């Protein structure tokens, strides 16, 4: 039990973050963290040393989070295949450069709020791939294994997720630029 508690302390932040990326709701994310660690504890004997404990735990947490999302949407099926056939972001439209650096324009909490709003608009199947690859730093292979997707599917979703986020952030940053220009003209 003591050794397991050490694992909880080691990975709880990551599991919470992944859960939040998927369910987009703090109470559900709390439940996901509890249920994922409980399941991991119950199934510890099934854990095979050929995959890393962390990716095994992430797989449990992702499944719990998708189940939770499905419940919240009262029975509507939610899978990581949902809404991924969109054309949004497949060809970049907003092509203004980000200058000055957006990080110089916004405070930490304001930027975090923008990032939360932006990622919230992505389909769950894109959010989860982006979270695992770009935020948590899993490899393409680990992400594919964790989500039960092929490597080309992970790559394609990651590209679309990155381009959609870029497009959406561009719109935010442009609004700020326009507002500053208007304020300057007054």
């Amino acid at each position, binding site marked *: 039990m003591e050794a397991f*508690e050490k694992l909880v302390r080691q990975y709880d932040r990551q599991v919470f973050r992944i859960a939040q990326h998927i369910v987009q709701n703090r109470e559900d994310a709390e439940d996901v963290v509890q249920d994922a660690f409980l399941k991991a*504890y119950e199934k510890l004997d099934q854990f095979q040393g050929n995959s890393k404990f962390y990716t095994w735990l992430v797989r449990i947490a992702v499944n719990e989070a998708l189940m939770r999302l499905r419940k919240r949407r009262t029975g509507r099926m939610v899978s990581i295949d949902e809404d991924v056939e969109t054309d949004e972001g497949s060809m970049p439209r907003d092509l203004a450069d*980000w200058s000055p650096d957006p990080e110089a324009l916004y405070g930490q909490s304001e*930027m975090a709020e923008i990032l939360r709003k932006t990622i919230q608009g992505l389909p769950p199947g894109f959010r989860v791939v982006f979270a695992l690859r770009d935020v948590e730093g899993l490899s393409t292979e680990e992400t594919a294994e964790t989500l039960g997707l092929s490597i080309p599917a992970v790559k394609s979703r990651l*590209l679309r997720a*990155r*381009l959609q986020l870029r497009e959406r952030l561009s719109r935010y940053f442009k609004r700020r630029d326009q507002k500053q220009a208007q304020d300057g003209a007054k």
Partner: protein
Amino acid sequence: MTCTEFLAQLDEMLDQPVAAPLRADLEEHLRGCEHCEITLNTTRKTIEIYRSHEIYELPEDLRDRLHRAIRAKCRKC
């Protein structure tokens, strides 16, 4: 190389060192295409911003509460 072909290789440019012949093609396209250069730079920046901001922080009080709940549940099973 067209913009669509460049875009299909965008992840290669972002994620790993690209093999020399392909890199030369990509760089040549970039020199003549401001749109793709902006797309590459702003996509790279998008990833950097997400990596460097903790958007779903786990506060210590919630963390303690979760640990207690997990411990209690695990003891029962």
